[in-house]
């Protein structure tokens, strides 16, 4: 299917918008989501965007796939071909993406099994509690801790009353 000549600017605008869009959606997905499962999904999208960008780097108008088929086998002309190197690179980076994704999902299963939640905020909180417990240290920034050496002054009557009837 040799591509008929179409206006290149639209194609360029489309493809690059697609690639960059995927990357940004991926990164935004990871940053915005609280659920760690969704983050892994978004990461996969970002990886896919990166791969598309790489393949676009090797594309040439009117070029044919870098595989010698039937008639090309005899003539062995490889001049009008797309650049094979980015394709080789993308092969590797797709499999890297899947490798990382598999490990991430294994960790998610374990986290869910141990902490029982998938929300990053709770996972972080539980982790910090564990770290502080293992280091036998009480975290300075946690709310229960009184600031500095002096214990917190007891709340005045009004707030105490309001607190316990809340």
């Amino acid at each position, binding site marked *: 299917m040799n591509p008929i000549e179409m206006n290149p600017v639209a194609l360029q605008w489309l493809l690059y918008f697609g690639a960059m869009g995927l990357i940004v959606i991926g990164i935004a997905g990871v940053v915005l989501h609280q659920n760690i499962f969704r983050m892994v999904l978004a990461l996969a999208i970002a990886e896919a965007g990166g791969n598309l960008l790489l393949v676009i780097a090797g594309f040439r108008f009117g070029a044919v796939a870098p595989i010698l088929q039937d008639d090309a086998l005899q003539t062995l002309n490889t001049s009008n071909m797309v650049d094979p190197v980015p394709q080789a690179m993308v092969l590797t980076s797709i499999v890297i993406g899947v490798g990382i994704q598999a490990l991430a999902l294994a960790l998610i299963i374990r986290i869910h099994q141990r902490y029982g939640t998938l929300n990053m905020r709770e996972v972080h909180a539980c982790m910090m509690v*564990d*770290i502080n417990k293992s280091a036998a*240290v009480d975290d300075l920034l946690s709310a229960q801790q009184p600031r500095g050496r002096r214990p917190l002054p007891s709340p005045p009557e009004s707030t105490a009353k309001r607190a316990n009837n809340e």
Partner: protein
Amino acid sequence: MNSIVLNIALPLLVAFLLPLIHASSRIAARITGPLVLMVMMWSAVIVFKALEYPVSIALGGFLPPVGVSFHLDQLALLMATIIPLLMLLLWPYQYEQNLREQTVLLLLAAASSGLALSGDLFNIYVFYELISVASFGLAAANRQASSFAAAFRYLLISGLGTVLALTGIALIYTQTGTLNLAQLGLLSSRLDNPLGLSAFALILLGIGVKAEIFPLNGWVAEVYSTASTRTSALLAGLVSKLAVLAIVRILVVAYDDSEAGLMLLVFGVLGIIWGEFSAWRAQDLKRMFAYSSIGQLGMILLAFSIPGEAGMFAGIAMMLHHLVVKPALFLLTEKWNHGTDSLRGAARLSPLAAALFVLFALSLIGVPPLPGFWAKMLLMSGLVGMDTSVYYIALAVLMIATVVEAQYLIRIAVTLYSASDRSSELRLASNTGVMSLFAVVLLSALLTLTPLGSKLYHIAAESSNRALYIRTTFNVNPTPVLEHKNATQEASL
């Protein structure tokens, strides 16, 4: 000269076969790991000795710009020898033989040697990814809930870094059409525009995750305090240095005379501030050393941001010094991992460990006779040598950071040596053996300071010499005479 590839092929081969070796006989599996590391060290030392000038190896027999090439200069081979040495020291000997952790360690060894030697941009990216996945595995190795969570968060940040690095490489490829570092050097005029610099920025952020660059080091404290001490010693000591080395090699060869170095400076300074000030507040030793390693890496980045030999020399000196001191300090936290105030009076129980801590702390701060001082002085003379206001600000930040660092390290030393009532449960730090090994290395560096200094200067001069790098790669069969043909002949390629 080609035998250096064994440093990558052999550990991979043994790692692939380890499950089978383990199935056949447990004892064989137990000793194969250290054996392989020794062979790696031996082969690296041979090549290191036989090398007078840099050599480039074409992998797969295809000449560099087309095929992947390894660039063997003294810096790369120095790292190639240090990697197996340090892993031998930090090998989990007495732990119950976790087969999978050993395989991952071997893979880490192969990948680190690959990263140190590689001369191809995408090859660096693949080996960097291999190191990342191996370090995720190691971070999650001791199977506690918090280490899984820390490993996951680390994986997430590193995954995003991978995406950025990939886009960076794609941008560079679209601009220059090549992946070989030497050829990128030749075409660096094309990379010198904002587009090239933003590609470098993306790669810097991508690889910076492991080099604990300022905004991306949220994972450092979590992973180092949940992983086992040997893993965190390995990650903090060795792997972060390799990531910095990869960035510096790209910077030196492809982006030599542009203000990409300035970006390194900014990240270095921010890293120092963030690392040292957080360490000041840290309450337990592991997190304190994690934050202090961020600070130290900020200093190393600062050193490498100085263009030319002075910067490279200071950077390598700081890097090697941190490589010796930090793993030793982390080994200390194996027994002393509770809060700092529970360490009161620990010196009476284990005097050797306390004395070693004071020695390493003084060297880290930079007290004269110890090598840490000479490394920091090189860095300062490099910064002052630049004589521009940005570098003076960096110098001021470095000074303040050192004062803060002195305060929290000596605070620990004073607690160690202060009197304490209940000193029963602090057991003797059993593995002072390995730590005293590090101390011996530190003191021997002190005694042989001048020859070591001149050797490092030679390494720095060679590795910061961009023209030499390009000439080596494109004369795959280097003429025996040291001075090569002039660069114009290469431009014809």
